[in-house]
């Protein structure tokens, strides 16, 4: 369950805001909820490692928006999403909550799976274009050989 929840929360967090909003609006899902924490814009400090494997250091900050809410049935949804869109944070927290209810199939089919497809397509596009720029070396033999 934790692995599944990590997966959908990560996907929601890193999704393109307009993709998520479009998918959500298309389904016209109406749910009642109360805020536990209204959307808040902030940042996290991204860290790297010296020379890839060494000690940690701080690279710089990334904007993040977070919120928490509770559905009428009592299910709690959280979100920490990239960027400064309060709407994206709200929809992500709603999806997180709904994915824990009987509506999970519907949310999965109409939001999570399409987002996953967009993400995979983007990655495939990058890797296939990068592959086309891969260098094929050939060696020129110089001088006489016997």
């Amino acid at each position, binding site marked *: 369950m934790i692995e599944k929840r990590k997966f959908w929360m990560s996907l929601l967090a890193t999704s393109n805001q307009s993709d998520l909003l479009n998918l959500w609006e298309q389904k016209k899902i109406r749910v009642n909820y109360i805020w536990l924490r209204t959307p808040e814009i902030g940042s996290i400090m991204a860290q790297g490692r010296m020379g890839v494997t060494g000690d940690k250091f701080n690279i710089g*900050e990334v*904007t*993040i928006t977070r919120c928490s809410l509770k559905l009428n049935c009592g299910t709690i949804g959280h979100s*920490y999403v990239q960027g400064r869109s309060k709407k994206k944070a709200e929809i992500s927290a709603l999806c997180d909550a709904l994915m824990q209810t009987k509506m999970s199939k519907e949310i999965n089919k109409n939001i999570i799976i399409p987002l996953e497809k967009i993400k995979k397509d983007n990655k495939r596009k990058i890797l296939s274009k990068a592959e086309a720029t891969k260098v094929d070396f050939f060696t020129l033999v110089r001088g006489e050989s016997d």
Partner: protein
Amino acid sequence: MYVAVKGGEVAIDNAHSWMSEIRRGDTSIPNITLDQISEQLTLGVDRVMSEGSLYDKDLAALAIKQSRGDLIEAIFLLRAYRTTLTRFSYSKPVNTANMTCLRRISATFKDIPGGQKLGPTFDYTHRLLDFKLLAENEAPISPTKKYNDNKMPHVLSFLNQEDLMQNEKDNNLDPIDITREPISYPTSRSARLQALSRGDEGFLLGLAYSTQRGYARNHAFVGELRIGIVDIELYIPELGFEINVAEIILTECETVNQFQGSKIEPPQFTRGYGLVFGQTERKALAMALIDRALRWKELGEDYSGAPAQDEEFVISHCDNIQATGFLEHIKLPHYVDFQSELELIRKIRADAKVNMKR
């Protein structure tokens, strides 16, 4: 006596109003949109994010528009905004071995697992103006090729295996965060890397070039340069586990440098390291050269007095926001300060004239 001077409010308002009008330019030409900036001036946006030390494309695009394309002014705007944000937490260290690479090259090994991928680069172009870009609605589509999704290990890890490369060990040290505590000298490599990663590209380029020309010479090869997308993992305390909260583009550069060896260690290669937000390879490369030059003490090398070896000189002057703030403030009214200088020089000259007459 201190004399406060007031005035100029109307002049300031009108100056800003004219600046806004000029920023908009000829109104018969469409207003530039933030999407256009973030989609078509991507490397400018990346530079503003890296030196502004805040990864947010929309804000960087806005800053570029607001600053009329003055990137240091844009970086200033982003830095100022950054200070208003609540810091939620620190991410887990990024795993650049799992990067989705747009570009990955090595200047030291020809045949590497995963191959040399040039990516979207200016390298090998002829640097001739391309008049085709004058034509509107250019939308070229680049070729694709079937790929395998194998991991792309870091090139220098192969040298690690033979012990030819100094191993970078994780000693579990907490890094200094220069946005939370002021730097004091001598400082740590973690503070230096953070300062360099957000440092001014021009300053770092000049200093890195100086090491190549012989000031703190440490002949560097580019072991690997990679640009791509990495996940930013964050521990969520409410849930007790980590999720990916962001995907960002990073440029990473590892240089291989000669090392003489010491009494206790046989000769071994050492590394300079650069890691920067966005597609910013000139900066990442410069950062790696300077990181290596600044490691002279740790590696038991001689201090030749070169600027690139002087950590206080490098770190306290690489930040363009600090630099421009102090430089540009001398344009602001200093009437009273100068008045006292004027009084002083008049008095000294008067006294000198009396003495000369004697």
